[in-house]
């Protein structure tokens, strides 16, 4: 057991080093006092006790060094050394507060920004989905083969009949369920509100592994057939807000879109469904049979949990086979050779849109570069300081300090410094996370339909333990990275050389100068990469800002409200006419209009178009068009230009000849070089499929999708010819559109007491939303680019001014020999420019390679955009010129006698 005894002994020494020291001290003094006593006794009075003690000490040896030796034996000297190094480092920091402040600040920015971005990456990409065993959850989609002009799709949602075909044939999943998210109006007259809802099967909760915190899940009976009893579950928040967390809520009835539902359960506080924002769940089967039994009405997402013995790879192989079964059960009704399939992927992979994933990774890479530049900068600072400490280090080497020991000392300094930087960096990170939150990219993602599964949201970004651990390890690694070069460098030069050095022209300084130049060059190169990236993104954002969406977004307000129960095709126009008239006569309002789907909405209705004056195409191969319902006033309210023909009038109503408007893109695509006016067409919606409608006018393109996607061919239907319920009210104001909000709300309240007003936003807000994510990632990237430029400029300034300081005597001699000021300026600025040219060239090559990854994030800008590269190189050269001009001017004003004396 000797090994164990030994280990136990050493462990005790290490873990309770303080009591170890005390005991050793006690033991040695016991020894000394005993020896002194013995001597005094033996001398029989001829020895004073002081002399006896002295003799004992002499016999014992050097108490301090023996203590140290014993401690070293116990393995404690390493800890001693660290503590000693740390104390020494703190002393040196106090001696050079400016150096310390600059270094800590630089590192704080680097580490803090990294931690903030890491938090975002962690929340959006890394943190497991908030369900038990999330790695077993899969998303199953239908696949659609490519058609004329349309690419293949692998993300098609399900219809209920197709779902049952898959469900009944499969053995891969232990649980699977359909769901979809929507909005509903809840409550009844006077107490209505609009909430986010999910409609889901009874297996939805069991698939996700969620259990209601109160009451129960939907029962199998409520999940079996369409027209099942209507039941609902509440989110914890809605339960608190609307029902005061009353446990008696179970069994009560709540009106959802004017239909009564029985409340059967309340879900746990953190659960908001896969949409991430649901407040209410209704059972899928509460829908009527004619809606649910339509095999070609695809509107549900399918989520499934793998059976225990099934691997993900197996599922990916088997699901396409199930797709064949579904296709056989429900073949395409029109295109007989078109076969749909099915595929599955990990739910985790769908958590975020690829564009967002990519932009987050780009930001992470960018912020990593910022940290590298910060490291190079601090390493440079260390080198400057090391050259000032050369003699100190040489002396310590001379008196016998080991090189390893000195390197450790210097590394302790740099790690300590970066730990300080890390601590201050937490403040930067805290601020950064709040900034991320302020941009509210989560909402922006939703607006642009980029949110993937909403259960992963930006509001989840916070500084947690993982982020803290990340920051701490980053600080330590950073400290070693930027500390190692100067540490090795400054302990390398032979001490004799350094001791002899007087004028700073020795071998060591040259080498330090060279590595300082290399560091500055690296900084400049990295800054060029970052600047190029952010420059491209800025240019892309600029292009996006210049996009003409096809309408005037100024002074326009949009809002939605439900239409009254029981109104149909005949009565709706009358109702809306009253709304439109009253709204248009509000003080400040200049016009009102209806449209079914606002511009920049991400997606609107689409359908097929056929041309009645041409031979009929193969069914299913008709071209797609966007389809929009509008009132005649929409063109004047939204300021959309009429290009040819006429606008709708109030007389284009039910019962008269059907007419449509088309946009310029449609005119160009379908009737190139011809006049579209008077052409007979049919479109697949609004009752326009069987009948022929004539094109009466061509209007300007409006971007209904997003700013960065060009307008699609669009067809407009006159609202009065095909009245419908869900319309959006547009209000144009002479002044501030927001001011019309309250009175417009009042009109709706008077006319429809049981309908809440929702989606009330100005058109300008909608445009801003459509750009929010691009703006968000661009601004952050630009911020990093700016920091990089600043750091690189600082680095250059440091190198050049250090060079000037080193050459003070040389400069003095030159001046004494008659060198002109401008010659001196040129000489020194040239040094900076050399750095800029070498660093810029390296950076340019690296940037051309690196910015390729930005391609999918850029709008109408190629990653090699010569304009951007020219501008950033100009900015860089300018920054470097300024950075070297300042020390150059100082050098040029040196008085020769002063310089010579100083040197």
């Amino acid at each position, binding site marked *: *057991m*000797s*090994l*164990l*005894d*030994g*280990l136990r*002994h*050493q462990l005790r020494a290490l873990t309770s080093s303080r009591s170890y020291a005390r*005991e*050793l001290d*006690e*033991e*040695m003094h*016991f*020894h000394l006092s*005993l*020896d002194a006593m013995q001597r005094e006794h033996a001398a029989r009075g001829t020895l004073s006790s002081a002399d006896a003690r002295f003799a004992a000490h002499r*016999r*014992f*040896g*050097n*108490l301090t*060094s*023996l*203590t*140290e*030796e*014993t*401690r*070293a*034996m*116990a393995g404690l*000297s390493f800890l*001693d*050394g660290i503590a*000693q190094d740390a104390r020494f480092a703190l002393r040196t920091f106090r001696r050079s507060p400016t150096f310390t402040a600059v270094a800590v600040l630089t590192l704080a920015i680097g580490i803090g920004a990294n931690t903030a971005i890491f938090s975002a990456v962690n929340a959006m990409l890394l943190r497991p989905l908030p369900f038990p065993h999330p790695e077993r959850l899969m998303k199953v989609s239908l696949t659609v083969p490519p058609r004329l002009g349309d690419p293949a799709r692998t993300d098609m949602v399900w219809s209920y009949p197709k779902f049952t075909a898959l469900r009944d044939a499969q053995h891969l999943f232990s649980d699977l369920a359909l769901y979809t998210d929507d909005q509903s109006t809840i409550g009844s007259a006077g107490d209505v509100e609009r909430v986010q809802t999910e409609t889901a099967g009874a297996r939805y909760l069991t698939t996700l592994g969620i259990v209601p915190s109160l009451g129960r899940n939907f029962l199998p009976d409520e999940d079996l057939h369409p027209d099942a009893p209507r039941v609902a579950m509440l989110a914890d928040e809605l339960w608190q807000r609307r029902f005061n967390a009353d446990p008696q809520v179970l069994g009560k009835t709540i009106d959802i879109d004017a239909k009564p539902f029985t409340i059967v359960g309340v879900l746990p506080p953190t659960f908001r469904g896969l949409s991430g924002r649901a407040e209410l769940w209704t059972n899928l089967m509460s829908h009527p049979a004619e809606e649910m039994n339509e095999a070609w009405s695809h509107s549900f997402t399918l989520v499934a949990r793998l059976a225990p013995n099934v691997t993900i790879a197996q599922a990916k192989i088997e699901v396409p086979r199930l797709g064949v079964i579904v296709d056989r059960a429900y073949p395409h009704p029109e295109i007989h050779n078109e076969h749909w399939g099915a595929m599955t992927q990990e739910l985790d992979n769908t958590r975020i849109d690829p564009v967002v994933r990519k932009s987050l990774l780009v930001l992470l890479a960018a912020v990593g570069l910022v940290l590298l530049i910060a490291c190079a900068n601090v390493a440079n600072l260390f080198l400057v300081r090391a050259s000032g400490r050369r003699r100190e280090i040489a002396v310590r080497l001379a008196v*016998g*300090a*080991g090189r390893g*020991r000195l390197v450790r000392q210097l590394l302790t300094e740099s790690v300590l410094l970066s730990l300080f930087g890390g601590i201050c960096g937490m403040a930067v990170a805290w601020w950064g996370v709040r900034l991320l939150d302020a941009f509210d990219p989560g909402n922006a993602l939703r607006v642009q339909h980029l949110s993937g599964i909403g259960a992963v949201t930006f509001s989840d970004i916070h500084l947690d333990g993982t982020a803290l651990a990340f920051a701490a390890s980053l600080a330590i690694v950073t400290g070693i990275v930027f500390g190692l070069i100067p540490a090795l460098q400054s302990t390398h030069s032979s001490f004799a050389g350094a001791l002899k050095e007087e004028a700073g022209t020795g071998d060591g300084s040259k080498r330090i100068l060279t590595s300082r130049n290399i560091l500055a060059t690296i900084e400049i190169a990295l800054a060029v990469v970052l600047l190029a990236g952010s420059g491209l993104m800025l240019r892309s954002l600029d292009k996006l800002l210049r996009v003409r969406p096809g309408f005037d977004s100024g002074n326009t307000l949009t809002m939605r409200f439900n239409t009254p129960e029981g109104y149909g095709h005949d009565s709706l126009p009358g109702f809306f006419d009253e709304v439109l008239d009253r709204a248009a006569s509000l003080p400040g309002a200049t016009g009102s209009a209806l449209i079914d789907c606002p511009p920049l909405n991400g997606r609107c209705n689409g359908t097929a178009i056929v041309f009645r004056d041409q031979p009929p195409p193969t069914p299913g191969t008709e071209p797609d068009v966007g389809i929009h319902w509008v009132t005649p006033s929409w063109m004047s309210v939204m300021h959309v230009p009429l290009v040819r023909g006429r606008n709708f009038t109030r007389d284009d109503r039910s019962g008269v000849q059907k007419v449509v408007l088309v946009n310029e893109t449609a005119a160009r695509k379908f009737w190139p070089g011809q006049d579209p006016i008077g052409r007979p067409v049919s479109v697949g919606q609004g009752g326009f499929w069987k009948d022929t409608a004539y094109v009466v006018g061509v209007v300007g393109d409006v971007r209904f999708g997003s700013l960065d996607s060009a307008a699609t061919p669009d067809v407009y239907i006159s609202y009065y010819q095909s009245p419908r319920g869900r319309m959006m009210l547009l209000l144009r104001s002479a002044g501030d559109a927001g001011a019309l909000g309250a009175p417009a709300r009042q009109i709706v309240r008077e006319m429809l007491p049981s309908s809440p007003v929702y989606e009330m936003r100005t058109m300008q807000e909608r445009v801003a939303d459509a750009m929010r994510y691009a703006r968000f990632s661009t601004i952050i990237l630009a911020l990093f680019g700016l920091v990089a430029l600043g750091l690189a400029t600082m680095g250059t300034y440091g190198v050049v001014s250090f060079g000037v300081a080193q050459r003070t005597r040389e400069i003095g001699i030159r001046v004494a020999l008659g060198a002109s000021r401008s010659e001196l300026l040129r000489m020194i600025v040239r040094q900076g420019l050399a750095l800029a040219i070498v660093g810029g060239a390296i950076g340019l090559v690296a940037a051309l390679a690196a910015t390729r990854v930005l391609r999918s994030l850029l709008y109408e800008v190629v990653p090699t955009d010569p304009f951007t590269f020219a501008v950033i190189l100009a900015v860089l050269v300018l920054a470097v010129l300024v950075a070297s001009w300042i020390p150059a001017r100082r050098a040029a004003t040196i008085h020769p006698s002063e310089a010579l004396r100083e040197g």
Partner: protein
Amino acid sequence: MAPASGPSKSELLKGTLDMLILQTLTLQPQHGYAIAQHIERLSEDVLSIEQGSLYPALERLQKKGWVTSKWGESPTGRKARYYTISASGRKQLGKEISSFDRVLVAIQAVMKRA
């Protein structure tokens, strides 16, 4: 600056000191001062060392598990750390004595031939 490397005594002497300590402890558990006195008495001051260097040696022996220590009361009533040789320490002592004997025999043989 703490000297990280060992004392400047020769390896032979260090090994000898370890051996002497172990030998001393075979009689009975003793505290550091008693060990020092005992070694000095036995070697009649021939192997004179700094008494303090006993402690790094004791630390080394404890780390190897050849010696264990415990605080106890000295005959004068003061607290002292008492060292005890362990079973593995005795085994080690046996090994060291035999190897020391071999070295001694070899040295004597060389000296005789000279």
